[in-house]
C-alpha cells in the first residue's frame, strides 16, 4: 500500500511540473510580443532547410524562414484561438446551463434537447459544419469551435444549478427579495467554480487540439498567419528532407496541452 504522503508528493509534483511547463510556454509566447529573433515571414534562399544551429535553434523551413520564430508566433495564434473558443463556449454554455438548470420547466426541456442533439456531434465535426457555412479563416474558426464547445459547458453548469438551486442560501436570498438574475449570477455562480474551473482547463486543451486539427486540415487559420497546425501540414510535405520541421510545432502543442493537464490534475489533488 502506498502511504498518503507519497500520493501527496506525487500530486504536488504534477502541480509543479504543470506550472513550470504552462508558465514557461506562456512566458515564451509573451516574449514574442516584444521581441522576435527574426521576422517570421522573412524568406531566404540560402537558409532553405537549414539544420539546427545556434543562430537558428529549430532550423529553417522550405522558404528559409526561421522555425523557432514561427513556432513562437504560431503558438500565439493557437493560444488566441483557444482562448476565444473557450470564451464563447463557456460564456454561452454557462448562460444556457444556468437558465435551464435554475428555471427548469419547458425551456429546460427544449434547450436541453437541442444541446443533446449538438452533443451527438464530435466537436470537430460540428466546427466543420459551421466552417462549411461561414467559410474558413481565423475568426470563423473561433466561432465554429466556440459553438461546438457550448454543449459540454451547458451540461456541466446545468447539473450544478440543478443541485444548488435547492440550497438554503438560495431560498434565503429569495426571501430577502433578491431577483432571479442576481441569485443566478451573484449567489450561485461562484459556487459552481469548483466544477467550472477544471472544465475550463479541459476545454482549453480540447480547443488547442481542435484548432491544431482544423488548421492542419487547411480549414482553420489561413496563411500568412502562422499556426501550429498549419505548420505541421506544411512540414508533412517535407518530412523526408526536413524531419525536424514537423517535430517542433508538434512539440509545442504537446507541451502546451501537457502543462495544463498536469496543472489541472495537480489542482484537483491539492483541493
Amino acid at each position: 500500500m502506498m502511504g498518503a504522503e507519497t500520493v501527496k508528493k506525487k500530486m504536488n509534483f504534477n502541480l509543479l511540473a504543470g506550472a513550470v511547463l504552462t508558465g514557461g510556454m506562456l512566458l515564451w509566447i509573451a516574449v514574442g510580443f516584444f521581441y522576435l529573433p527574426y521576422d517570421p515571414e522573412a524568406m531566404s534562399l540560402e537558409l532553405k532547410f537549414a539544420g539546427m544551429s545556434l543562430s537558428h535553434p529549430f532550423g529553417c523551413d522550405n522558404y528559409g524562414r526561421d522555425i523557432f520564430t514561427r513556432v513562437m508566433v504560431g503558438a500565439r495564434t493557437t493560444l488566441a484561438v483557444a482562448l476565444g473558443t473557450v470564451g464563447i463556449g463557456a460564456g454561452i454554455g454557462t448562460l444556457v446551463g444556468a437558465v435551464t438548470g435554475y428555471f427548469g420547466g419547458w425551456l429546460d426541456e427544449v434547450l436541453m434537447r437541442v444541446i443533446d442533439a449538438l452533443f451527438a456531434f464530435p466537436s470537430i465535426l460540428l466546427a466543420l459544419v459551421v466552417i462549411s457555412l461561414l467559410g474558413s479563416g481565423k475568426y470563423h474558426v473561433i466561432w465554429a469551435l466556440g459553438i461546438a464547445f457550448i454543449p459540454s459547458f451547458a451540461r456541466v453548469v446545468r447539473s450544478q444549478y440543478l443541485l444548488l438551486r435547492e440550497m438554503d442560501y438560495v431560498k434565503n436570498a429569495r426571501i430577502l427579495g433578491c431577483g432571479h438574475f442576481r441569485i443566478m449570477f451573484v449567489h450561485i455562480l461562484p459556487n459552481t467554480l469548483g466544477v467550472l474551473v477544471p472544465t475550463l482547463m479541459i476545454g482549453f486543451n480540447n480547443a488547442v487540439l481542435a484548432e491544431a486539427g482544423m488548421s492542419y486540415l487547411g480549414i482553420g487559420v489561413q496563411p500568412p498567419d502562422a499556426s501550429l497546425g498549419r505548420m505541421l501540414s506544411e512540414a508533412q510535405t517535407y518530412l523526408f528532407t526536413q524531419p525536424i520541421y514537423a517535430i517542433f510545432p508538434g512539440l509545442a502543442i504537446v507541451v502546451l496541452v501537457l502543462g495544463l493537464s498536469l496543472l489541472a490534475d495537480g489542482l484537483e489533488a491539492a483541493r
Partner: protein
Amino acid sequence: MKYIGKKILTMLLTLLLVSFLVFLCFTVIPGDPAVAKLGTDATPEGIEMLREEMGLNRPFFVRYADWLFSMLRGDLGRSYSYEKTVGELLADKIPITAAMSLMSMVWIVLTSIPLGLYAARHEGGAIDRAIYALDQVLMAVPAFFAGILITLVFGIAFRLFVPGGYVSYNKDLGGFLYYMIFPSLSIALPKAAMTVKLLRSALIGEKKQDYARTAYSRGNSTKGVLYRHLLKNAMLPLITFLGMSFTDIMAGSIVVEQVFGIPGIGRILLTSISQRDYPVVMGVIVGLASVVILVNGLVDILYQLLDPRIRIGGK
C-alpha cells in the same frame, strides 16, 4: 424494459432533431443552390426554372419532410459536383473509415486493459509511475501529430510502410489491412492513454470498497480479487468511456486520413466542404451523427443490462 423503450424513443427524437438542425443550417444559410449551380451570370428565368425543377419553391417543411423520407429510403440526393448520387459516392468510402475506426478500438482495448490492470495491481511501483508519466504525455499528443511521428519512425526510418502508399481494399485486402495498422495506431495512442488512466483509477477506487476487503480477508489472492471482483465493477465506467471514445475516434479518423493519404469519409467531407457540395456534406454529417447516437444509445442500454444495481433499483 420500460427504460429501454424510453431510451430508444429519446434516441429517435435526437436523430430527428439532428436531421432537422442539419437541414435548417444547410438550406437557410448558404443561399440559393440554384444560383450556386448556374453561376452568377444566369438569367432570372433560368434560375426560376431550375428552382421549380429542384423543388425549391415548395414550403420549408414540405421540403424537409421530403428530404427526410427519401433519406430514410436510403436516397441521399445527388452530388452537385460529381455526376453521382451521394449514396454511390459514399458507399465505397464507408468500409475504409469503418475499418480504421474499428481497428483503433481493438488497439485501445488490447493495450489499455492489460496496462490498466498491471498499473492498478502495482500501484505506486516504478512501472506504475512510468505508465502514469507515459499516459500524461501521450494524452497531450494530437492524433495527427502521432500520425506524423509514426510516419517518421515506421515509414521513413524503419521503412515498414510507404508513406502515402494507400492500398485499396478491393485490390489487396491484406495490404489494405496492413496499411491501416499505422493510421489506426495513431488514433488509438492518445485514447488508449486516457483509457489506461481511467481503468487504473476505477480499479483503485474499487480496491477501497468493503466488498474488496471482504474478499481479501476470506483469503483470496490479490490477483484473484482483481480479476474476479474488481475488474467486473471497473468495466462499467470503462464501457461508457469506450462508447464516448468512439465519437472521438471517428472524428480523429477525419484528420488522420489526411496524414496517411487515405481516401475515406474524411477526404470526401473535406473536398465537399471546399466545393460547397452540400448534399454530400449533409449526408456525411447526418450519417456520422447517427452512428454516434446509436453507439451511445447502445452503450446506455448495455450498461442497464450489465449492472444489476441499475437494472433492479432504477426506474
